[in-house]
């Protein structure tokens, strides 16, 4: 079953604008990760935020985590056409030995040049 649900399912913006994607999850987590998937390719890890962190930055990426609301957001600033991809949140909350990530359904981002 899918743990996370991304919102919106699809997002289209102009180059230079900011893109915000949200993720909600159901059970308690140890950490939350965001991955990117270009069309026809595998997933690439972007950023990880631990359950005791509230915000994290990496280049043009900003991730927030609100464990009380069981939600996270990914902000991509100053978007580029090359940011066009699907973005997935993934949670890791399993018991020891079963920490495989559970992925959401993804947000498809289209950045228009």
């Amino acid at each position: 079953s899918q743990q996370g649900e991304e919102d919106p399912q699809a997002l289209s913006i102009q180059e230079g604008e900011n893109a915000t994607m949200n993720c909600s999850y159901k059970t308690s987590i140890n950490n939350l990760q965001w991955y990117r998937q270009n069309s026809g390719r595998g997933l690439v890890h972007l950023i990880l935020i631990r359950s005791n962190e509230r915000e994290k930055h990496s280049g043009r990426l900003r991730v927030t985590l609100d464990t009380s609301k069981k939600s996270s957001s990914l902000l991509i600033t100053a978007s580029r056409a090359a940011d066009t991809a699907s973005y997935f949140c993934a949670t890791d909350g399993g018991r020891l030995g079963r920490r495989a990530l559970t992925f959401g359904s993804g947000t498809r981002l289209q950045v228009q040049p």
Partner: protein
Amino acid sequence: EAGVAQSPRYKIIEKRQSVAFWCNPISGHATLYWYQQILGQGPKLLIQFQNNGVVDDSQLPKDRFSAERLKGVDSTLKIQPAKLEDSAVYLCASSQEVRSGNTIYFGEGSWLTVV
């Protein structure tokens, strides 16, 4: 460093036929995963190995799917017999060890179309 290798990249088979996918994880990675990704959805875990032992196969349809990881390195995923709903991308991934916060590295995937 070489990434996760998968083959074949694309496969088209008829329903009720069998298919096998191969994965070679990143060198030294103890944990290997197979995920199924249906078009428009996120990846769903099928099976997780730690070295050559199965950690989690609770979502693997064991009546038709099987997987093994010989000698704790390469892995194969087999589907027999295939159904139309098995059309998906099969993603192999690996990580250094089973602990929280590990980055998982994905291969490019094996695209299966069942007709």
